[in-house]
């Protein structure tokens, strides 16, 4: 049985439905992420797990026991808040000792556990400092140590890295992965940053407008988005509406505006005449000079309309003869030159049959 079971949970604020009939089961030891844009209900769901908010209907079960009647202070669930919420009048050690004191832990045991928790987050020397004497990353680690010191069954993390700069965030991501592996506690992580979700999680629930749009491993979410919203929200994606012309064996032919006929891998339960969207990741599309046709089953000629030079790669937007825009990227690997193409260059773009993913309407 799953450690945390969320069953048909709904939460409404007036006319607004923040969480709309969500069901999830989260396993012990899992690094689970709730991902979605702001207002998708992920934080409301987190607050209901912590106990700061109650579902209007549905159940939240921890180890098979409904949490509804249990106030936040008695749930074996701790939260790392977005603002860290460290107690400014207590030292780092005082902050970490707080939950132990609340649990009436004997003083000598508190001392030992605090030292261990600070060691775990590499802050062994910082016990006597006050929060305002620490950097953002150090405060973050104190917040994590404080939430983990009593070994809760579940650790909730509410956008914990959003206040850090990009370099530090990447470093903290690696630390979080290692820490979670070490302590083996279930992490439920809330973020709007899809990159962070893909990097950290065992499984991701992509949320939109209070509903779970897709629940899967990061690679599945990225490669096989279930619908337009997921495809668009996770990474960059070319999305083309079209109709299935014919289905033959493992592939099918699509009629796409601006391209004509495009062959793509067959999806289950599809028939000629079905409408849908072809999702194509930019990195799966090859780009070559017009005279050296790019390799791939679907090849189209076009002109570079826009480009975005990012240093390691350049993103090219190619307009096909039919007027469709194809976003593609190419590593700037040519020695002695910054990039391969300029705006106005005639190019060809191509992709394999299995490069795209057809989203049935």
């Amino acid at each position, binding site marked *: 049985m799953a450690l945390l079971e969320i069953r048909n949970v709904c939460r409404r604020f007036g006319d607004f439905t923040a969480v709309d009939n969500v069901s999830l089961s989260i396993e012990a030891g899992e690094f689970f992420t709730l991902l979605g844009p702001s207002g998708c209900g992920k934080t409301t769901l987190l607050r209901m797990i912590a*106990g700061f908010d109650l579902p209007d209907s549905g159940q939240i079960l921890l180890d098979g026991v409904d949490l509804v009647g249990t106030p936040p*202070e008695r749930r074996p669930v701790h939260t790392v808040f977005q603002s860290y919420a460290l107690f*400014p009048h207590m030292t780092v050690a005082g902050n970490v000792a*707080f939950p132990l004191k609340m649990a009436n832990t004997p003083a000598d045991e508190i001392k030992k556990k605090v030292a261990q928790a600070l060691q775990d987050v590499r802050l062994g020397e910082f016990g006597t400092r006050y929060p*305002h004497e620490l950097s953002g990353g150090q405060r973050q680690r104190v917040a994590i140590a404080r*939430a983990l010191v009593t070994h809760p069954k579940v650790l909730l993390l509410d956008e914990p890295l959003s206040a850090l700069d990009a370099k530090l965030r990447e470093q903290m991501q690696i630390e979080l992965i290692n820490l979670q592996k070490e302590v083996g506690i279930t992490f439920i992580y809330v973020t709007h940053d899809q990159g962070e979700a893909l990097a950290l999680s065992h499984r991701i629930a992509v949320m939109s407008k209070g509903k779970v749009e897709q629940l899967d491993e990061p690679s599945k979410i990225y490669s096989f988005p279930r619908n337009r919203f997921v495809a668009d929200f996770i990474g960059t994606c070319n999305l083309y509406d079209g109709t299935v012309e014919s289905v033959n064996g493992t592939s099918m032919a699509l009629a796409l505006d601006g391209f004509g006929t495009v062959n793509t891998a067959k999806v289950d339960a599809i028939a000629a005449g079905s409408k849908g969207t072809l999702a194509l990741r930019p990195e799966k599309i090859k780009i070559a000079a017009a005279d050296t046709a790019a390799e791939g089953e679907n090849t189209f000629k076009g002109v570079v309309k826009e480009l975005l030079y990012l240093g390691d790669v350049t993103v090219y937007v190619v307009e096909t003869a039919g007027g469709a825009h194809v976003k593609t990227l190419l590593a700037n690997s040519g020695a002695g030159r910054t990039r391969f193409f300029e705006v106005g260059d005639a190019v060809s773009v191509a992709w394999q049959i299995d490069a795209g993913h057809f989203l049935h309407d």
Partner: protein
Amino acid sequence: MTKPARPRSLARWLISGPPLLYLIIFFVVPCLIMVLASFRSPGDYGGLAPLHDETGKLDLSFDNYTRLADDFIFVKVFIKSLMYALTTTITCLVLAYPLAMLIANSSKKYRDLLLLLVILPFWSNFLIRVYAWMIILGPQSALSRGLNFILGLVGIEPVTLLFSGFAVIVGLVYVHLPFMVLPLYANLEKHDPALLDAAQDLGANTWQRFWRVTFPLSLPGVFAGAALVFIPALGIFAVSDILGGTGGIMIGNVIKQQLLETRDWPFGSVLSIILTAAALIVAGTAAWVARPRREANV
């Protein structure tokens, strides 16, 4: 070579100069005059005796200070005033804290209204408000009669509320309560609600959240409010004059009496100096304890 004056420091002097000058003329200089007066002799018809006596010798002595030490009655009034001020401060704190929390936690709409209600009494005259207490506590008031009726039922002698230490403290608390509420509110209003969420999340119940988080974080407000209540309550004479009767006099009444009625200026000065010193010690301690050490929100 002379350096040109930095315009910023000139502006600073222009801004801080007038208030500084004002304080020197109307606070520092009078204080020095008072210190000097405390060593002089009283005049035959009040005021001060000439600085030089008939033989031309400077007439300065510690006589007035030794008189304070000899006459235990003044020390007793001093101690009583300290106790009144302390009781007033603690009562104000106990009454003001829940009120300040209520205001700080209420929605923006009601917050301004509640704050207005706290400062509303300032709009009417201080003496009128204290006289009103004379009626409320008087022997014919509903309060006195109701209380004595209940006491009579359980066989206790009737009590007089007015003209007692109790009446003085009631008046002092009433007059000073807003000075405790406002600094407490200003402090509590800045607290980050996430800290209470965090405390609750980490296992603290309502009581623990208050004693471990809210109260320690509000200490600067507590000390600011305590200083604003204790210092004026210590030196006040109007409230004890009106509500205290003969038994409820405070050091402020004695000083007023010495300077205006007995016209013993040197001894009045001695008492004033002791009062000012006590106030400075309390204010200094409060400022030191409440000194800003940490950021409000981390």
